Structure formats: structure tokens, C-alpha cells
């Protein structure tokens, strides 16, 4: 889907992104993580040509992005940023409709799409369509921002710390929302953050970046279990590593099929951390597990968590 090949960007001779290579497969939720100033936002902005690339190449669907006119390229890529960048003089509906309108969709189709997106982001269309951004809470604004990024059904979604300015409760909710939308739409997402918890929660693939270079990439669990060097080990955090491991593994990975237990079941795809929390709360070492339809499929035990 996206091939980044030895991409380099220099500002006044100083490299901000240097020889960065990464392939992102279609449908992947790739989280680009690194400390502030490591060049991750610059790299993201190189993909939609907000920042011109100095050396190397970036290809989307096999085509070099420099061969696509910048505006046409950007209309194919969803873009959401931390400050939302909603147009304050436009209503929620007009904001969401930005790219479809640029693409010249017929009005009826735009209206339908806006409705669908507001519903998807759990914003009641009748209540929100005609409101202005400053009349919304921070969480609602960011929901509109995400809806706007998704509006023209882009093949790729670029998100630059979209939830960093939100309070923990809204951040949690929107993260869940995004995971749900990703599963629903199978969009390729490239998400930038400096928050390791957020990365572990969202990513199907992670890329760790430091001083403009790619340090390690792989599935979240690989990065936690086999950090490539001390930088990654420090960054993912030596403390609480066990809990982080529990939050990337799923109940389904450790299931004891065929056994039964009493109580409220935990979902098969819940992180082990959730099962651990439920055990501590209910003072038990065994929990029943149910699949998506609520049918009991087995048991998870305390010992399984540390296996």
C-alpha cells in the first residue's frame, strides 16, 4: 500500500528524517511512535506532500507521490490533526463535506455521506449537522475531525496525534471508536503518537522512530518482547512492561477450551489485562470466556496469564 524508501528530509542541512524505509500493507493500522521532535510528524506530512521529500521516494499503490498532483493526492488521503483544524465558520456538516465537495460529489450523495459518518462517530446527525465547531466539546470536535478525514472514503488515513489534547476519558472512547472503525472499514491507517499505551492499544503494526531514523518495526508484541536496543527498551518502558504485555495479548491466545466457570464472561478478543483486572476485582482465579455472539467457549485462569 505505502512504500517509504530511504526517505530523507533536511532543514538547513540538518536531517529531520533520514533514510527512512517502511512498507505498510493494505488494511494495516500502523502506529509510528517516538519521542517529541524525532521527525514522525514530518514523515507523516511527507506522505501527503505537505512537506516535500528531499531524497528517496514514497509510493502509494505503486505510484510515486511526486507523479500525482499534490491536491489530487491529498483528496485521496484522509488527514486528522491534534488541533482538529475544523473550519470555525462552517457547520459540522460543511466541515465533514469538505473533501466530497472538492471532488464534486452531487449534493444528495454528500448529504447521505455526512449523515452516515456522523452516525459512525456516534454524533446524532439532527443535533450536530447545523452546529459550529466552537459549540462542541473537545471530544466532539475531534469526532468531527475524524469524520471529515473519512468523508471521501480515502484509501489511506494519516493521523497526527489526533487524541493527544483530549482528557483521558474522551481519549479512551475515541481510541475504541477508531479501533472499531478500522475493523469495520479495513482502511490503512498511519497514526503518529508519542504515547506508548495509545500505540499498544491501537496498532496492528508499530514503527519506533528516533532522531529521524527507524529503530524497530513489527507487531506490538514483538517490540515489547524483543526490543531492538536500549532506546526501544527505555521507550516502551521497563516499568509496567508486564502489564503492557497483558494489554497486547488477547484472551483468545490463552483460552482453555471446553472448561466452564461461574460468573459474567469476558469477551474472547478482550486484552488479557482486562481479564486480569476482572479477576482481581471479583477475587477469583478463573473466568468464563464468551465469543462475539455471547456463546461460552472456555475459561481463562490466572496461571494462563503468566504462561
Amino acid at each position, binding site marked *: 500500500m505505502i512504500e517509504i524508501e530511504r526517505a530523507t528530509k533536511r532543514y538547513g542541512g540538518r536531517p529531520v528524517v533520514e533514510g527512512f524505509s517502511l512498507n505498510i500493507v493494505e488494511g494495516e493500522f500502523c502506529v509510528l511512535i517516538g519521542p517529541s521532535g524525532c521527525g514522525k510528524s514530518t514523515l507523516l*506530512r511527507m506522505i*501527503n506532500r*505537505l512537506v516535500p521529500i528531499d531524497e528517496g521516494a514514497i509510493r502509494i499503490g505503486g505510484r510515486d507521490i511526486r507523479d500525482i498532483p*499534490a*491536491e*489530487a*493526492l*491529498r*483528496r485521496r488521503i484522509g*488527514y486528522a*490533526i*491534534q*488541533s*482538529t*483544524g*475544523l*473550519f*470555525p*465558520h462552517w457547520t459540522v456538516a460543511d466541515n465533514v463535506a*469538505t*473533501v466530497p465537495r*472538492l471532488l464534486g460529489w452531487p449534493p444528495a450523495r454528500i448529504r447521505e455521506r455526512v449523515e452516515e459518518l456522523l452516525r459512525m462517530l456516534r454524533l446524532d446527525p439532527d443535533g450536530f449537522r447545523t452546529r459550529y465547531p*466552537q459549540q462542541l466539546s473537545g471530544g466532539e470536535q475531534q469526532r468531527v*475531525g475524524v469524520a*471529515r478525514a473519512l468523508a471521501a472514503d480515502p484509501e489511506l488515513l*494519516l493521523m497526527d496525534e489526533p487524541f493527544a489534547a483530549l482528557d483521558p476519558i474522551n481519549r479512551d472512547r475515541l481510541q475504541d471508536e477508531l479501533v472499531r472503525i478500522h475493523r469495520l472499514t479495513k482502511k490503512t491507517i498511519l497514526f503518529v503518537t508519542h504515547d506508548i499505551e495509545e500505540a499498544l492499544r491501537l496498532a496492528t503494526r508499530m514503527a519506533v522512530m528516533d532522531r529521524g531514523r527507524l529503530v524497530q518495526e513489527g507487531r506490538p508484541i514483538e517490540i515489547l518482547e524483543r526490543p531492538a536496543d536500549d532506546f526501544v527498551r527505555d521507550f516502551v518502558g521497563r516499568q509496567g512492561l508486564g502489564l503492557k504485555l497483558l494489554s497486547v495479548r488477547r484472551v483468545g491466545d490463552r483460552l482453555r477450551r471446553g472448561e466452564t466457570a461461574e460468573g459474567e464472561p469476558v469477551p474472547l478478543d478482550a486484552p488479557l489485562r482486562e481479564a486480569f483486572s476482572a479477576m482481581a476485582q471479583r477475587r477469583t482465579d478463573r473466568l468464563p470466556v464468551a465469543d462475539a455472539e455471547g456463546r461460552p467457549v472456555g475459561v481463562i485462569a490466572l496461571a494462563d496469564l503468566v504462561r
Partner: protein
Amino acid sequence: MTADYAARPPDFSAAAIRNRVLPVLGLAAAAAILFSGFVEDAPNRLVSGRPVSLWAAAGIWPSAAIALFAALLLAAALLPQKRALSCVIAVAAALALLAGLAAAGMAARTLLAGAAPAARIALGPAFWVVEATAAFAILDALQRLAAGPLARLLAVAAIAAAIAAVALSGSLDSLAIAREYESRHAAFAAALWRHILIVALSIGPALLIGFPLGVAAAKLPRLRGPLFAFLNLLQTVPSVALFGLLIVPLSELAKAAPRLAAFGIGGIGLAPALIALVLYALLPVVRNTAAGLLGVDRGVVEAGRGMGLSPGQLLWQVELPLSLPVLLAGLRIVTVQAIGLAVVAALIGAGGLGTFVFQGLGQYAVDLVLLGALPAIGLALFADFALRSLSAILFPAAPR
């Protein structure tokens, strides 16, 4: 503060001054009436007159009305500042403003009765202080009422209409300024239109040139420094000097190209006046355009670019609408400035209200100066107020 006070029972102790503006205004009005002339009585239009106090000039009733107004302001300062009180003060101040005008007119008529035909009654310091006091009291009341732009517009329009009615009723006709107007009313109307024409003709080109320059200054940081340095330099040239400096090149141009001269372009007259006004207007227009565009939230611009708006779409659909309040403020500054500068343009034969100002200065006839200056001030206040109201109605949330 008002809500705080409203919750308590009324307290009439001396310490409870609830409004610091009103007593100052009341005392100023009282002092001016007691210690300075309300009108000035001169044997002819060229010498300064002998001050005549309010009660001597206008008699007991207008004096009592204005004294009552001053007392009301002092008393109102001690009362809880409720909305009803502010309404009463606004109405009383408006009546006092009209009473002052009527008193001056009445005084002039009485004093002129039996005087020589050359005698003139001019407005004195006490008159101006009373009128200013009343105006400030009205503004203070409107402020406290948190009146919206429409309410303000209506209030000011009502007062202006009342003043016009007093003037048209002929009760001010004996005042010196009205006598000056009397002998020049055809010239006055022509000068007023000419003045408005000069201002209007200078603002169009100033916007046409200044707006693109402002956009360029916002988009090209390298251009910004030199451009603003040049425009600032222009602004420092004294207006009289700039008018003078334009005479030579323009008269040479007219000599070299007689076709241009046929259009009225020459060293003196409308052409140099318009050029100078346009040059002075450039800095505010360019600066406000650039400041407005640069003031648009960077995240909004970034998001707009990231979603694929072209630079033109970004400018017209996002950056301009969002900076419109600042642009409108620029237009307001330029209009007010042009109305003032156009007075000076009379020096190089451009006409307008400045004609009376310079004639009056030449003859040492203060009332003739006022005949030019007061309408110019009125025009400027009107333009400022109208554009402010427009901005307040169009952009209720924008800071002003």
C-alpha cells in the same frame, strides 16, 4: 459587579459610590457652567467675544434643566446600578444634550436682540463641556446596559435625528456658526459632497492596491520587511509636505501629456489629493490584510491544505472569511483617516470641507473653521460608528 450589588439591599451611605464615571461627569458639567462662559458675545465675527454665563444668557429654565441633569448624575452614582437606572440616565442625558443646544440657540437670539447686525454669538467652553458630558453619560449608560449593536445604532440614530430636528426648527439660527452657514449654504453642500467624493474615490484604489499587497505580505515573509518599511516611511511624511511634493511631478506630467490634463490631472486639485490619500491608506490596508491572514489559526490552514484545498480555494474559502473582521477594522481605520486628511487636501485646491477651515484660519474666524471642522468630525464619527456596527452585526463573536 452589577449582579453583586443587585443582591444587596440599597445602601445610601456616603461610601457607596456605585458608579465612578457619573460623579466626574456631573462635577465637570457643574464646574464648567459655574466658571466659564456658555456662549461668547462678540461685536463682529473676527474678534473673540466676552464670555456670558448660562443663566445670564439663557435665563432660568434651561439653566435649571441643566443643573437638574448634573444633580441627577451625582445622585445616580449613589444608587444601585440597575438596568432601569441606566435607561433613565441615557434618556436624561439625551434630553440634556438637546437642552444644551436649545439653550445656546435661545441665548443667541436673546443677546442679539437689539444688537448691531455684525454682532456674533459663538459657543463657549461651558456649552462644549455640557454636550460632551451628556454624550459620555449616554455612552456609559449604553455600556452598562450591554446594549447590542442594533440597540446602539437605534439610540444614536434617535439622538442624531433629534439634533437635526432642533437645527431645522430654526432655533439655532442666531448662533455664529449658523450665520456662517447661512452665507455659504450652497458652497457648504457642494463642499460636503466633494469631501465625501474625495474619501470614496481614494478608498477604492487603496483597497484594490492594498489588498493584493497584504496577501503577498502574508504569503511571502521575505517581502514583508521591506514592504512595511516602505509603507511606514510613507506614513511618516507629513500630509502637507506630501501634498506639496506631488505638485511638481503631476504638473510636469500634465504638461507632457495634455490628454491627462483634460481628465483633470494636474499639480493641484483632485489628482494629487487622491494620490496622497491612497498612499496614506496603503499602510493600514496592507497591515490589516496581512495581520488578518496571518492571524488565522495555523491548524485550520494546515488542515485545509492537507485535505487538498488549492492555495486559491484556501484563500477565498477559509483565510479571507476568517480574517474579515480584521479587514473590516482596516477599512474603518482608513475611512476615518481619509476623512481627516481630506480636510488638509483643500490646501492644494482639492475642495471639500477643508476649504472652510483654511478660509477661517486665514480670516481668523473661528466659527468658519468650525463650519468645516465639525461636519468633518461628524462624518468621521459616523463612518467609524457605522462600520463598527456593521462588524458587530456581521461578526458577533469577533474581538474588537
